[in-house]
């Protein structure tokens, strides 16, 4: 377990050099501490139970159990799952998209600078806003548009508006300021959106919103 000031991180990647490198980088950050490593998606669940991390850095492509399957397992099994941050070699990866749909909280390029990696971990751990909204938009813009599905039609106009602002990367207080409504109201809207879209977090809701054509990738700011 981590102290309130530090965030604990579990690294899941099949490549020992990547794990060692990330560990060396993250351990040097005063507020981050690496509490464990997993070399295969199949180990992730056990390692989480053993180390109780706040955030899991999850490689999408691993031999054996990949990051998508591992993400699904974690979210389905644990009552209070850690935040899952997918790490990937390239951002135009179909696996990343699937991982986000499966409920991962965000994604990050492995080649990102150490400040970016640390920022991503903090943002995902806080859970208040979508990580790298621009990158998510690019990822989804590169995909063929899916036909509109019924789920999004059940959103109210206000909820749709809130969802667009989530996709643009705004946190709940930012949304409240933007729409001149109270933070409580925003939280209610966000809760309703998650329920209606059957989404576990902002990233998943945004992916579903883009997929269903509710928000077009060019539209978000």
């Amino acid at each position, binding site marked *: 377990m981590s102290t309130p000031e530090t965030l604990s991180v579990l690294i899941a990647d099949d*490549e020992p*050099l*990547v794990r060692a*490198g990330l560990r*060396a*980088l993250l351990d*040097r950050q005063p507020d981050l501490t690496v509490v464990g490593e997993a070399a295969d998606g199949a180990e992730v669940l056990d390692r989480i139970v053993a180390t109780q991390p706040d955030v899991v850095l999850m490689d999408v492509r691993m031999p054996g159990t990949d990051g998508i399957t591992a993400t699904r397992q974690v979210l389905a099994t644990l009552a209070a799952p850690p935040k899952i941050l997918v790490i990937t070699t390239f951002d135009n990866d179909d696996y990343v998209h699937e991982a986000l749909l499966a409920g991962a909280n965000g994604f990050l390029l*492995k080649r990102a600078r150490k400040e970016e990696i640390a920022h991503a971990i903090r943002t995902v751990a806080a859970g208040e806003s979508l990580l790298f909204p621009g990158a998510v938009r690019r990822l989804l813009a590169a995909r063929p548009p899916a036909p509109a599905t019924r789920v999004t039609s059940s959103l109210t106009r206000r909820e749709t508006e809130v969802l667009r602002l989530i996709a643009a990367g705004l946190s709940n207080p930012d949304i409240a300021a933007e729409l001149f409504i109270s933070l409580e109201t925003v939280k209610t809207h966000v809760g309703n959106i998650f329920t209606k879209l059957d989404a576990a977090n902002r990233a998943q809701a945004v992916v579903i919103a883009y997929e269903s054509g509710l928000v077009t990738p060019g539209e978000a700011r």
Partner: protein
Amino acid sequence: MAVLRSLSRPGEYRGLPYAVAGVVLTVPATPFALIVGVSVRGTTELRMLGFLVGLGVAMGLFGLLAPARRLSVWLANDVLGARIPPPGPARPAWPDRLRSALWLVVHGALGWLLLGLAGMTLLTGLAGPLIWFSGGERDAIAFYGWKLNIEDGWAGSWTLVLGLVTLLLVAVFCVGGTRLFRLLAPPLLGPSADERAAEAEQRAAVLAQRNRLARELHDSIGHTLTTSTIQAAAAAELIEADPQQARRALGTIEESSRSALEDLDHVLGLLREEPSAKAPQRTLTEIDVLAGRARDAGAEVDLAVTGPLGELPATVSREGYRIVQEGLTNALRHGGDGPVVVVVAAAAAALRIEVVNPLPGTGPRSGRRGLTGLAERVEALRGALHAGPEGELWRLTADIPLRQAR
């Protein structure tokens, strides 16, 4: 209305210059046709028929020539505005040549027909007003015993109407001719089913190759460079606090960079193999040029060629060229001092290629990725490729059986 609209479109008149081209194309055939026509005994009609048949036969014979198809397609696309895919670099097969021959006959015949009809109609139409302007004439128009007077003054003004109607008729002929040409050209000049299949195969091969390249790049180089990046960041972070671990990180960067280069070598090899429709494929008949180029690059090349290289099947000959090329390249790049011996022996049953060069005194003697691709393709021709050191020499040999390879 649709007819009128099409009459106003300039593109619909491209059949006219195309018809002229067809007529011009028949000119070289006329001497032959004249000989046939003159040598026919009998009535004038029979002689005319002989002339026409002779013209058709001569045009057909022209059409059988290999370049006829390319020329016809070019004419049809550029002059007529048809959209026919140009034929590939291969020599046309006989069924395709027959189609081109038939097209040349059709082109010439329709060309004459359209020009003749349009010309005669135009002359008739213009003659009326001209006669009227110059004061009229009795029996001005005689048509199979049917005669018509053109009077002076207002009574003869109907010739103007006739003139306009015939102009319209000429326009209709031109547009109709264009349509007819465009209708008939694609089946006779377009790619055959075989050609379409070959092209699709080529496209699929290129696509598969690209996907393979993308996968290779993604899996190998992207992966290794990512590891290097992370390790470099870690090394920078640790250099003071933990120099030993920083040194280890630098070591792994060296290693992964090296393996990335090896992967790159491999991927570039794939890229060079990429099937290309445009680049001319060299064959063994140009082996002298190849040896000359290697000599220019500083190699001492002993070339010994036996057997009729020109009679080898094209696929074998192309592969042979690549084998010699790869052998010479490797000899230049990795070989030691001394002559490169190239033997190319084409016998009835098999083609044998040997490239032998001295090994360098020191340095690496392995890892020539280019050979892997060659070996695969030689195997596809049911042959065998071997390469390896032999004492102080490096020997590359390839044997490709000939009858089965056809």
